[in-house]
């Protein structure tokens, strides 16, 4: 069987997946932004793993699906998690607490935001994790080139969690605010309300969401649990629970593909 992996890099988790699948006897090709051309040449593989959510990998995923080549996870699911506007309104619809969002130009923010509402978190509309994310404490820190539209969220003051899930296994870690996935984090027992949020999130996708992660903050003032970011395919670099992420994820993907055939 020939498997393609759509990934921004060939190393790290992608490299481990490739090794695992090759050891099982499969032929695996990794497509990065250096060698990915989206046309009929892609149709030579039996199925694809969508590791990265860069727009071009999503395009490739949609193209493959339209040509009846399975893509795991599904591109539309990954897109919803990559696009912060989509994920925000989805979380609201399914009843999760999530910080209010604001979009506008620098001038609009300066003229219409209330000083009492600071700080905010500035984030890219398309993205996940901490890339391009920064805290905004004053009007002067709101800047953009060409008065482009900015996306900001209300900052939630509280305990920050990085919560991984692989099938029914949940691994909860306390992390420093606004940090990326790779900083050292402290594992804790998963509280019931975090388990419930994961369950609600996965239920929306009707069993299609095999793994992923949510960033959450427990607000000091209210004790409410806010989901502040979602990710469809993290590196699992801080996974500190039982099972091996690489082995289990590859097994889940292969099982999914078998069910789709």
């Amino acid at each position: 069987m020939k498997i393609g992996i759509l990934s921004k890099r060939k190393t790290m988790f992608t490299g481990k997946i490739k090794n695992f699948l090759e050891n099982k006897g499969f032929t695996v090709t990794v497509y990065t932004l250096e060698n990915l051309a989206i046309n009929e040449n892609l149709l030579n593989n039996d199925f694809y793993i969508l590791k990265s959510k860069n727009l071009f990998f999503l395009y490739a995923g949609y193209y493959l699906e339209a040509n009846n080549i399975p893509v795991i996870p599904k591109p539309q699911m990954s897109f919803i998690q990559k696009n912060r506007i989509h994920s925000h309104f989805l979380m609201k619809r399914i009843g999760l607490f999530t910080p209010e969002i604001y979009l506008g130009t620098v001038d609009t923010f300066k003229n219409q935001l209330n000083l009492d509402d600071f700080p905010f978190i500035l984030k890219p509309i398309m993205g996940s994790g901490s890339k391009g994310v920064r805290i905004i404490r004053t009007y002067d820190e709101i800047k953009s080139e060409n008065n482009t539209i900015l996306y900001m969220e209300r900052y939630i003051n509280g305990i920050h969690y990085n919560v991984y899930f692989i099938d029914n296994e949940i691994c909860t870690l306390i992390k420093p605010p606004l940090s990326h996935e790779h900083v050292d984090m402290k594992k804790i027992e998963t509280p019931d309300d975090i388990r419930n949020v994961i369950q609600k999130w996965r239920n929306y996708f009707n069993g299609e969401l095999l793994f992923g992660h949510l960033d959450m903050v427990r607000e000091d003032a209210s004790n409410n649990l806010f989901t502040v970011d979602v990710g469809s395919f993290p590196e699992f670099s801080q996974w500190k629970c039982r099972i091996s992420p690489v082995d289990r994820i590859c097994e889940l993907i292969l099982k999914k593909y078998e069910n789709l055939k």
Partner: protein
Amino acid sequence: MKKIGIIIDKYHLKYKVSEFLKYLNSKADVKIYTEETFLLDSSKIEFDENLFFVKGKGDLILAFIKLIEDLTNIPVINSYRGTWLAINRFLNSVILRGAGIPIPDFSLNPKGSIPPFEDYIIKNIIDQKNWKFKPIVHKENGRLKVADERALNEVDKVDPKYNYLYYQKFIKSKWEFKIYGIGDEIYFYKQIPILINPNKIESRRKIDREPELEEYCYKAMEVMDLKLTSMDFLKSKEQFFLTDINCTPNFNYIKDGHKLVADFLLKQAKI
């Protein structure tokens, strides 16, 4: 009186809708939300409009459509899906071809990687800005290579960061067919292709209903969830090819277009 919200950017407000607004204001309560001055606050979802009409495709406009669709029952024309697909050229090519509408062959390649066809036109991948098509024509060994200046400017930018080009197989055609869809009504025009005569209006003329184009137009509107659109077709060897689809058509090019669109919106707005 019905209440209509207009979600628009400054460019369209200044140059494209003056007659339309004058007419609509005489028929409805109109409130204008301008992308460059409106603060979208996701906690504020109390709107009393009977319908929102979108004239623009910027990030705030897309977010506003999503908010209205997800958190209220107010209809929006065009929808989030229609607008998003229309601005993502590669995605709409995939979807339209999947629906059986003839699309010229296309490929998305890293810069420097040759597309799998010889005569081609390079187009912008994300058609979100209000810039006009500026063709750069290059002939090499009898082969035609056309690039849209916007596409070349798009490449290598920092944000969004990518180095891809969208290639569409070049279709040689005597005429370019411009089709407008306003709800169930289709309007047919043709003009000399812009590469031959950049003044597209000079040669534009109304033509009779063309059943094949009409069928493609209805199908494209259905699969992309567009209620208002314009489409460009080229014709080669008796075969039409859909080359462009637009979610913010300039309806001023149709006779009484502003009235047709306003009346259509008023019909869609339910009290």
